[in-house]
């Protein structure tokens, strides 16, 4: 299927990927049902009722309550399915699912804004209650994205020199943040050296920087060995050759 998210991990089974994608589609369908159900209710003033022993002033639009319930529970079921199967595929597969949060609150917030600035009926004014809801929903939708972007921008400013060599693909910006943040922090004190401002260097990782080409070559060799392209004997010999290469 070619849906590999990790360097040397084998492709996940087709059924895993298919169920994962089904879960993603269910999440999107659930959000769409909620979005449309909300619009149907807002069209008639924003609230409605159904069932019960009382006389109902504003009955719900046909099908809207079912659509809303289906959206909530179908979307949740889809999220759990996609998360469960995505965990077998890789971090990228589960990570992308969190976009459902801004999608949900962004879409519902859009409804609040649209109906807030142009409420149904003949009233020419703005419906401030809905506009406030729109602000809150969009803050919930886009606040985390702004935080993520900010932390990624901060991570870019931390030099990666001397970082722990990763056997997998290049770390994402978020992973880079985690690496940088999980390293010990410099202790503040009068003896603090200005060059010690970067946690990675404080961790002693930069004390004796390894030759990057050697590390790369060793990693590539280990990968080939792990994948079975090199026998144990060939791997051992090639490793000795690498380590004894002139210029070391």
């Amino acid at each position: 299927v070619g849906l590999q998210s990790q360097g040397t991990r084998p492709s996940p089974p087709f059924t895993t990927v298919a169920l994962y994608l089904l879960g993603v589609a269910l999440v999107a369908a659930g959000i769409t049902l909620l979005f449309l159900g909300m619009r149907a209710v807002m069209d008639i003033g924003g609230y409605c009722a159904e069932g019960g022993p009382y006389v109902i002033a504003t009955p719900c639009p046909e099908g809207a309550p079912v659509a809303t319930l289906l959206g909530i529970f179908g979307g949740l079921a889809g999220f759990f399915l996609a998360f469960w199967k995505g965990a077998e595929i890789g971090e990228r597969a589960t990570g992308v699912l969190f976009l459902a949060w801004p999608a949900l609150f962004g879409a519902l917030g859009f409804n609040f804004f649209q109906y807030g600035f142009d409420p149904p009926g003949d009233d020419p004014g703005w419906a401030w209650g809905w506009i406030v809801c729109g602000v809150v929903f969009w803050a919930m939708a886009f606040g985390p994205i702004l935080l993520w972007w900010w932390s990624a921008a901060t991570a870019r400013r931390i030099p990666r020199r001397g970082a722990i060599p990763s056997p997998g693909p290049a770390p994402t910006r978020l992973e880079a943040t985690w690496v940088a943040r999980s390293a010990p922090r410099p202790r503040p004190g009068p003896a603090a050296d200005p060059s010690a401002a970067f946690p990675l260097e404080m961790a002693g990782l930069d004390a004796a920087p390894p030759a990057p080409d050697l590390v790369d070559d060793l990693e590539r060799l280990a990968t080939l060995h792990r994948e079975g392209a090199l026998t144990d004997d060939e791997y051992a010999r090639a490793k000795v050759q690498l380590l004894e290469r002139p210029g070391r």
Partner: protein
Amino acid sequence: VSRGRGFLLVVAAAAIAGIAAGAWVFGLLTAPAA
């Protein structure tokens, strides 16, 4: 297309299919009874 981008494209396609399916189901549910 790189593997990472291809993966995101497939996920996006699934999401778009889900949106279309959701809109279709909503249409079925809210269609006035004939």
